């Protein structure tokens, strides 16, 4: 028998309780290995976006510059000009560029490989297209941070809360103070 677990995705503040109203979008391709079937439910009502890397004010929202009324979308892969100089890309080298993830018409939407456009908060579906193993682990609660209850409601963070999509490697941190060595008495 397949066991179905539904998790609420709450971005911030941690520990906040998700509430369901309306029909929350459900991630497709529910994870069905390991003898179970996990549906990851995103409740837009419950989502309070923290400042993840993609909301850097200089580059977000995309439509601020890429307004289709004024700027004709150009889907040709090319070196981005001066307006993007402040942006740092270090994600899969030369192999991917903007429109492999962003929608051509509306840059503030993401586009899956089958053409479906999704909201930024559903980024895990997009990231999971390449990073399948991490996506599976994340759905099972094994990749990334989970808070809440081991036997009940959990909150967990989507990819872009910890990873800058343009430069996804998790950076370093300053360590907290080391323990005090024992006193040496002679």
């Amino acid at each position, binding site marked *: 028998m397949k*066991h179905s*677990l539904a998790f609420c995705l709450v971005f911030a503040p*941690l520990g906040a309780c998700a509430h369901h109203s309306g029909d929350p979008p459900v991630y497709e391709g529910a994870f069905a290995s*390991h*003898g*179970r079937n996990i549906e990851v439910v995103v409740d837009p009502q419950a989502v309070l976006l923290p400042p993840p890397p993609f909301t850097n004010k200089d580059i977000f929202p995309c439509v601020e510059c890429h307004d289709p009324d004024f700027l004709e979308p150009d889907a040709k892969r090319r070196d981005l000009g001066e307006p993007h100089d402040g942006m740092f890309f270090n994600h899969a080298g030369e192999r991917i560029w903007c429109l492999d993830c962003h929608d051509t018409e509306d840059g503030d939407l993401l586009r899956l490989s089958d053409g479906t456009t999704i909201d930024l908060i559903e980024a895990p579906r997009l990231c999971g297209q390449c990073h399948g193993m991490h996506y599976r*682990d994340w759905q*099972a*609660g*094994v*990749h*990334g*941070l*989970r*808070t*809440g*209850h*081991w*036997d*009940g409601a959990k909150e967990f963070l989507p990819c872009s809360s*910890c990873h800058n999509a343009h430069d996804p490697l*998790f950076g*370093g*941190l*300053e*360590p*907290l*103070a*080391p*323990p*005090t*060595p024992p006193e040496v008495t002679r």
Partner: protein
Amino acid sequence: MKSATPNRREFLCVVAGCAAAASSGSCGDLTHSGFFQDRFRELSRAEIDQVLIRLEREHSERFGKECTVTATEPREDVEFGYALDISRCIGCRRCVQACVEENNQSRSPELQWIRVLEMDERHGIDFHYAEPYYDPEQVPQDGYFYLPVACQHCKNPPCVKSCPVGATWQEDDGIVVVDYDWCIGCRCCMAACPYGARHFNWKTPGISAEEVNPDMHYLGNRPRPVGVVEKCTFCIQRTREGRYPACVEICPVGARKFGNLLDPDSELRYVLEQKRVFVLKAELNTQPRFYYFMG
């Protein structure tokens, strides 16, 4: 059952009775009624409730704020396990601090249940090359990985076997606990533990009223007296209520996983079934419930 020879408690009653008379009912950090309390495992529920009320009163008075002390029991069909992804841990020591704050560890003198070891990649997991005092500007450092170590909650715990008075034991949900009111401070368990997970209170633990976590468990984070041994309890005051341990919730890279080993849908079972998992010092047959894995 009463035996013909006086047992420890009766003996203590006589000795302490004299001492109590001379010192107006207190002995070190223990109050008169605390001193005469029987071992926790032999108390009836009514007696436990009495003890909890006394402890709540004592701690609330000491810290000037309301403290609650529970003794929530293990649940049926639960055996706790822990998994730590060493391919993710960056050695930032956030878990160490969260543990100190949650579990009322002494700030002065400093006492910490989690020790994060910096391991040299060239030597792998060889404790001869483990460095707990690393302090670079930023972690992780190239050429090193990080191995946080605390109590492994072994299925075959050498510390429990070594305790001469039965002050430490394994609960039905797998948590190895210490009765701080029964510990005589002989430190046999510290010598027996191959993970250095047990710590001794050489001085009265120093915790201020602002620092103290008032949500306490008898076998967990209630403030300890001087002269007893303490260690990680899987945050018993949280996990017995269904919550994740504090270290799990603080880890910025989500390297720490906790759950019920008996639940086939738990994160723990996923890790055990899908990842490369090892335990520390497996050759000692301690059978830890603390697993390390590479995600």
